[in-house]
């Protein structure tokens, strides 16, 4: 499995679809072949030859399971971890050796890292003072930031005297105040409860829109990534597996891991030949053939909501095993005659009835384009 092929390695490589216009001018961050090895008792390769370009004003998300290297990549960009190999470019300048206090990049830390000995307002002032801005300008910006995150009323509170959600806002304001080129956010919402998290997701989108700052957002929550991002990079074990818009990632996952990690999925064994696949249960269907997959045994992805219960005789025959009702939809777990499990997700209509019983024979069909051939 060669992740490299998916990702532009240098300026010469084809750029991903999102920034087709004029790559050189629009690119904020350009990480080239970055590796990070932690040498301890045993070596950990936290980043393995990662290359990624992030466009200006983009809401870019690093998505992957815990331990896949998201934080490490963020810390390399912020300047806290020197990469073991590779270079990092910001707005066309090599910043690999620049210490964090000289990078125009700010971080919203996972646990906020607010200064406990300073008030809310002084936390926000800090970066501006360090940059040596004139006092009058600092006061203005701090005021503006307090309004932006709606914390005006709490500006003289200690950071220990405000709630988690409010701390979150202060951390955001503090990082936005110096108007960084890039804002890095490391799972900023993970400590909040569900309701607050949903609110903050919208809030973050709004802030990114209003400030026009490039956001690099880290999360392990696929839903969060899908709803917030312009583009997503899916990571696993120190590599980037795929970069693309939420739609691309969801509908055309490049690898089985990506498909599995994002959304629910059925994988069916099939044989690829030309522009068609043949399933083990029989049935040959037209597919969009990926460029780098050879004829022979392949895996085919079928999202449960793209499958339908059908009466078409050409649909796949199966037997119902379980029916699970979950409010807005019902999941029907079936087993194909080949022995493979297949899940069908049916939206619940107001007067839905007529769902199949356990053990009932059914046929499963799908719309054209619902099948994705995966390389694995």
């Amino acid at each position, binding site marked *: 499995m060669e992740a490299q092929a998916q990702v532009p390695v240098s300026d010469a490589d084809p750029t991903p679809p999102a920034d087709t216009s004029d790559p050189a001018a629009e690119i904020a961050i350009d990480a080239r072949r970055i590796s990070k090895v932690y040498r301890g008792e045993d070596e950990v390769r936290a980043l393995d030859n990662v290359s990624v370009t992030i466009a200006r004003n983009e809401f870019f998300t690093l998505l992957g399971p815990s331990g896949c290297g998201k934080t490490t990549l963020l810390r390399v960009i912020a300047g806290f971890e020197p990469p073991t190999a590779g270079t990092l470019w910001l707005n066309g300048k090599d910043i690999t050796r620049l210490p964090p206090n000289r990078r125009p990049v700010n971080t919203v*830390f996972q646990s906020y890292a607010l200064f406990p000995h300073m008030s809310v307002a002084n936390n926000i002032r800090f970066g501006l003072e360090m940059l040596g801005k004139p006092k009058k300008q600092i006061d203005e910006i701090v005021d503006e930031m307090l309004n932006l995150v709606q914390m005006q009323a709490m500006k003289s509170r200690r950071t220990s005297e405000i709630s988690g959600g409010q701390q979150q806002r202060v951390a955001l304001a503090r990082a936005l105040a110096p108007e960084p080129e890039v804002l890095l956010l490391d799972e900023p919402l993970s400590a909040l409860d569900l309701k607050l998290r949903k609110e903050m997701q919208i809030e973050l989108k709004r802030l990114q829109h209003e400030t026009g700052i490039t956001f690099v957002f880290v999360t392990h929550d696929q839903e969060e990534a899908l709803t917030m991002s312009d583009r997503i990079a899916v990571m696993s074990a120190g590599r980037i597996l795929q970069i693309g818009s939420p739609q691309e990632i969801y509908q055309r996952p490049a690898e089985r891991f990506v498909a599995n990690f994002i959304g629910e999925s059925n994988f069916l064994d099939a044989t690829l030949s030309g522009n068609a696949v043949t399933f083990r249960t029989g049935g040959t269907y037209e597919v969009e053939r990926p460029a780098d997959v050879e004829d022979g045994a392949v895996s085919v992805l079928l999202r449960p909501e793209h499958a339908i219960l059908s009466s078409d005789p050409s649909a796949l025959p199966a037997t119902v095993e379980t029916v699970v009702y979950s409010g807005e939809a019902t999941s029907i777990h079936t087993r194909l005659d080949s022995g493979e499990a297949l899940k069908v997700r049916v939206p619940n209509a107001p007067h839905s009835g007529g769902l199949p019983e356990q053990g009932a024979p059914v046929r499963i069909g799908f719309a054209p384009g619902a099948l994705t051939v995966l390389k694995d």
Partner: protein
Amino acid sequence: MDLPEDAGQLEAEAVRRDTRDRWLMSVPALMIIFLAAAGPLLVMVIYSFLTPGDYSGVKWEFSTNAWSSILVQRDIFDDTLQWADAHLTIFWRSVSLSIITTVLTLAFGLPTAWFISTRPPGKREFWLFLMTVPSWTNLLVRTIAIQELIRAEGVINNVLIFVGIIDEPMQMMFTNFAIGFGMTYVYLPLMVLPIYAAVEKLDVRLLEACYDLYASRWHAFTRVILPLIKPGIIAGSILVFVPCLGAYVVPRVLGGGKNLMFGNLIELQFGAGRNWPLGAALSFLLMVIVMIALIYYIRITSQERKDG
């Protein structure tokens, strides 16, 4: 639910018996400390209001002379009141040397504490151990070691003469310098330990946050590190200042007969000075100053325990 008349009596009885047992168990320790530490302090207070005996000891006549003579003395010839210059000099030396020592131990101890806490987790105990072992070995021996170093024929002078920086040995023994040097050496670990505890609690992410926000090394130190470890610095300063103020062995060995500190002035009253009441009064004064500092210390450390 109806409770019978004698409800709770059994419990109350058990609690009372438990409390009594616990007091009884503590009696031996309390008795020993009362007889051979705390109780005598009370007698000492009484002595400070008596009249010095002709040879030594006291005469049982009430007098406040001891207390007033701490600060003023009556001239032998014209009977006028004057400041007790000798005492004031010694107080000033005690306080200023204690402050200087505190500042020096801070200047050396803070970097040392920082160094220890930035070692890999498994190695920190080793460095701490290395720092604390000497402070558990004999104070007198460590003072003698300093004497070896700074004597006229000591190592420092020999090296300086050998290198050619000086021709004659420098007089370092029996100076205020010697006392300050010795106390800094002896009390350094008392500064390192509480600062280490404070640095240990410092969240690295706060340092990352401040560098992320463009702080220079200097600003990170003064604006974030120092304010956050201030409780440790205050605790360490008190822990050093207090024994310096009451120091006896170091000034006696390194200061000689002329450079007395508070503790030596007290001793003098029981020896050549033959003024036990004054000695008792001075002791009591020292005790009160130290108690105030320690109560402040306890308040800071318990405050911190509450916050942390």
